[in-house]
């Protein structure tokens, strides 16, 4: 695919490393900033983004332009507002934001400038997960250079707009990626999600209006502003515009991530880009968009990877990063691993999540270790039901945790039954 069709990753070159400001400009960078600050009003920028139909790439898929529209309109000079890049990327199986940040940090910086201009935020924060050391170095370097050249700081390009970015290196915990918990963390508190309202756009960080956008979402902005909403919308194969970073991990031949048109069929991602399964393994099922999406089995491979289609197939696009379960890995073991993750990463605020998930984990432990009972299956089903629906728990963490469990209970019913009947894990003992 040509570079023009890969606006997010066109400038990423693992050999030469991330482009500096000049190389970035040569590759088409800063055009959008010049255009926005020179010729567009903040409302124009929001309008273009709304028309581009860009949807948030952080997992929930909320319309980005629409999200911005709730922010009070005062100019940045009059009111403290924040634009925050969600670079917490802790969804198991997901490594797209790291790729973007390590590969071309300036594109994120520019995306943040554009978003901040649109909502008139003077303060930018990159909420970066603590383990991303290389990304941290490269972002700091890129920000420093951009600041030196006047892309960040007071009166950018001589305009009235001032904006700067600071990197917050986090200290772990998946829940920090949840946007309100992220804000709580930035305020130096325990990362518990907050109730909405107030939505971050009106009462976010330190009570000030704040926008939280995923890294990939933000990286889409420079090409959108530079090339226009229509160009972007046309990049997608279906209803959703633009490209998307898709990926695959597990026992595929070439695990990795690729920028592809939004709506690329799952089969193409797995079979072409990931090269199909490793020799000797068959695909059993997969989580299409990270750990908190429901399992799809091989029969769903023809689904187009856009928001609506994946949902119709019974799962969620999520982060678009698939995790593949092969035929020689125990599905119960995999679910147990996932639920261990979710139980451990619960913030401990609400009862069902805090005390329900560890119970689920223990039930799965028991089944996997051969001490499971039929009653345990009822308990798993009960938890999947009670924690799975939204509104039961304080935030979306527990429903996310139940997605692989609920789908797995159906899809792998026989495996569960075998574990209980044989009082052992058949797969582990076969190996």
């Amino acid at each position, binding site marked *: 695919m040509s570079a023009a069709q890969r606006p997010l990753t066109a400038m990423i070159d693992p050999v030469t490393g991330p482009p500096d400001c000049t190389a970035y400009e040569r590759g088409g960078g800063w055009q959008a900033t010049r255009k926005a600050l020179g010729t567009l009003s903040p409302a124009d920028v929001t309008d273009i983004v709304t028309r581009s139909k860009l949807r948030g790439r952080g997992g929930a898929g909320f319309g980005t332009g629409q999200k911005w529209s709730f922010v009070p309109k005062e100019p940045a000079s009059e009111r403290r507002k924040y634009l925050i890049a969600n670079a917490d990327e802790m969804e198991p199986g997901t490594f797209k934001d790291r790729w973007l940040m390590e590969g071309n940090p300036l594109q994120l910086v520019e995306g943040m400038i554009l978003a901040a201009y649109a909502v008139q935020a003077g303060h930018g924060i990159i909420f970066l997960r603590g383990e991303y050391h290389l990304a941290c170095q490269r972002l700091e370097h890129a920000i420093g250079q951009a600041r030196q050249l006047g892309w960040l700081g007071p009166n950018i390009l001589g305009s009235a707009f001032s904006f700067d970015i600071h990197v917050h290196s986090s200290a772990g915990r998946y829940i920090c990626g949840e946007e309100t918990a992220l804000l709580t963390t930035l305020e130096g508190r325990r990362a518990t999600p907050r*109730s909405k309202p107030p939505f971050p756009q009106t009462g976010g960080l330190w009570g000030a209006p704040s926008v939280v956008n995923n890294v990939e979402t933000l990286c889409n902005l420079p090409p959108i502003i530079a090339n226009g909403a229509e160009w972007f919308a046309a990049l997608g194969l279906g209803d959703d515009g633009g490209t998307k970073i898709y990926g695959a991990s597990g026992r595929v031949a070439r695990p990795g991530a690729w920028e592809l048109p939004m709506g690329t069929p799952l089969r193409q991602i797995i079979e072409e880009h990931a090269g199909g399964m490793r020799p000797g393994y068959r695909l059993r099922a997969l989580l299409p968009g990270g750990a908190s999406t429901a399992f799809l089995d091989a029969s769903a491979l023809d689904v187009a990877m856009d928001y609506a289609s994946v949902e119709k197939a019974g799962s969620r696009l999520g982060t678009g990063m698939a995790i593949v379960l092969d035929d020689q890995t125990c599905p119960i073991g995999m679910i147990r691993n996932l639920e261990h993750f979710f139980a451990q990463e619960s913030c*401990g605020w609400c009862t069902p999540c805090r005390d329900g998930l560890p119970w689920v984990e223990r039930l799965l432990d028991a089944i996997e270790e051969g001490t499971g009972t039929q009653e345990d299956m009822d308990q798993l089903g009960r938890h999947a039901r009670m924690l799975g629906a939204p509104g039961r728990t304080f935030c979306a963490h527990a429903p996310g945790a139940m997605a692989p469990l609920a789908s797995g209970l159906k899809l792998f019913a026989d495996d569960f039954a075998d574990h209980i009947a044989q009082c052992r894990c058949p797969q582990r003992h076969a190996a």
Partner: protein
Amino acid sequence: MTSIRIDGRDCPTRTGINLLQACLEAGENLPYFCWHPELGAVGACRQCAIRQFSGPDDKAGRIVMACMTPVSDNALISIDDAEARDFRAGVIEWLMVNHPHDCPVCEEGGECHLQDMTVMSGHNLRRYRFTKRTHRNQDLGPFVKHEMNRCIACYRCVRFYRDYAGGDDLAAFASHDHVYFGRAEDGVLQNAFSGNLAEICPTGVFTDKPFSATYSRKWDMRGAPSVCVHCAVGCNTIVNAREETLRRVLNRYHADINRYVLCDRGRFGHGFVNAPTRIRTPLCLMAGQQVALPLTEALEHFTRMAAQGTVGGIASPRAALESCFSLRALVGEARFSTGQTQLEQDCVQLAHTLLAKHPGALPTLHDMESADAVLVLGEDVCATAPRLGLSLRQSVRQASFHDADAARVPRWMDGAVRTLGAQSPSGLFVITPAPTDLDTVAAQSVRAVPDDIARLGFAIAHLIDPAAPAVADLTEADAALAQRVATALMAAQAPLVVSGMQYGAPALMQAAASIAAALARRVPRPGLSLIVPECNSMGLAMLGGVSLEAMLEMARAGELTTLVIVENDITRRLPPSDVAELVALVPNIVVIDHTATPLCRQADLVLPATTFSECSGTLVNLEGRAQRFFQVVFPAAPIQESWRWVQALARSMESGAEHNATSPADLPHTAWHLTDWQDLDDVLADLALAFPALAGAASAAPGADYRMNGQKLRSQTYRASGRTVIRSHISVHDRPPPASPDTPFSSSMEGAYGPDMPAPLVPGYQVPSWNSVQALNRFQQEIGGRLRGGAAGVRLFPPSDDGEARAYPYSTDIPPPFTPAADHTVLVLPQPCLFGSEELSMLSPPVAARAAPPMLRAAPRMAAFDRAILHLDDRPHSLPVSPLAGLPEGVVLCPTHRVMRAFRFPVRARLEGPHGTGEPS
């Protein structure tokens, strides 16, 4: 008003509350944990799940958390919905995953919210079959016990302790199902309201530690409504007793005063009642020794004393109105002292006068919570009126509430309001000599000496109303500060000025009143609150009497042969030389008190009185509210009420008079039928006649003849179990309940009880399905609002809302600026402490354990030595010194009553370094 439909039943309710509140107010049993009426909703426990339908055609509806959902007009909800019920039972089951099965040994048992909710949810089978996680407990000091395994992580404790009470040494630690609530390290909880954790915690994690030592189940104790005696705020309490010992003090809801919270001094100060310092028999001084003597002999002894000449009386601001009044009746107006020094009496009188003529509002504590600008002028309210300080702390949230209103976020949506209010400004200004607990939430806190604070206050009044006198020679900084405060107060809808008599400085109270009066020309009801020191200081101010100094003069003039001192240790008030002189001059000193004070040791006759738990009586708090406390313990004779002792003395005087052939009719008390009084209501009836201003005291609570459904009220829960067991080695028969002539209580399980009972008579909270303190919800007309049983107590000050502000003669008595003395003396300012300054609570072992050792505080330059010698009236005191930034030079702070017993108002004294005249012994 609006209406919602709960499971097909139309229930009138109100907007502005959440559905959980609406359901509870509608009498529904909907379980909850994390929501608390005073702390708002945060949606953590997920226990209050219900189903809500979007309209009549919506058959599916959705599960919502009732506490997080505002009432909307005609909302359709179902509590009974099978899935909602199932989910609620599920939540209990999750909470039980790690909860131990230790109810039988848990001190929360029988009044445990978790027990109630478990039963209510219907959950009864625990299917979790794996190992429970366990925690280590911490030693949190003398007040609160910690048992973390029982924790259900509702987050109430930290929300109360940190967000509400401003504590910072209790926190949530770790995450997921390892969350832990405690301190970073073992240690004493520092916040003044830590004891409330026992009531806030819905299970047995935090419990009352002193109570634990003499623990009894809720249902095996008698309860009585009471009033705290440890400061002038007058918080309402419930006292629990068993086997004629006082076991614990709980909060009793009063919508206008303490609401859901007591301070630790109030909750744990009751230990003096059971302390070894109690006097249990009459004592008389014989050859320098105090020996016990029988009642009749004691009274005969008094007859002889009275026959020797005139009898004077010294009352006490810590004694009930009835005791003070009876004494006044005994000795007559001329020889009746309030038991206060002249300065103290002048201050209390001034407070009374200023409040009574204040043209604006005299806010209740609850009103204070919604003051939008507050000036604290020279009073450490957190030490002198702790619960009031907590109300002032809440006032700083006003701006965030307004922000929430603007964002259309309900005020009870606690997390959201706190998020929105992160940058909302505080409207609280604190100007005091010493740091106070309110400093951290103040917009500004300033250190100055009382005279300079008064000057600032007058300057503020002048800025608000130019008709108020101007202050000459104000420093530039002070002028700017005055302007800032004046601007804030003038911009407020409900401004409030708080001062008091901690520094014995009338100018401070005058200045505060001037500001409030000046404000009255701009806003309808500016608030004024003046803090007086003791639980009945205000009542005594209304009763009147001469000062202690005047009594001393009388003694010097040889006009007193006998002094009857009621519940007053005057060694805390008069310098030792004065006490010694008084004792030497007056041949017969009679002390009626419950506790062996230093004064008792010098008394010729000591008569054992009841404590607040052993009698009934009336106290008038700092806002002029008369409140009744009721007897819960029936002490062994000859302990009796002070007023009954006084009555007994009157009778002996009568018999003595007959003997001496003088007419009993000439005795002062005969004017008031003192010897005819049968019960407390008789005393109050005469009090009302004698002091019309105090007439309201009689109706502070229903009289002893009150009956509900024709019955007395029971003071025990209906299922007392251990009543025969305890005495089974003696007899298995029930003992007849003790007679309780002064109360409408039956002191047993028999009698009427219910949520509609008169508010001043609620002996405890319990309704079917609700055995914990949460049963209170059912006793309120609206949750967080008034009690169903009406008001408790009667405010005695005439209401001043006659529309227009009364013309106010501003005080012109503006002190000159403070200048350090040239004669090497320093101004010693009293520093009252939450624990340590108040007389009775210091006799309670857990409170005494919390009192810090006395220490001086001085400006950093003066604190060059870490010890210094302070020459007070009695003797030199060698004390540690610690620096206090912001304190002017020439001033030291010294804890009241702890260095020299009588020290509590500013004095000038010599201070020298440790190498001065040598260490005093």
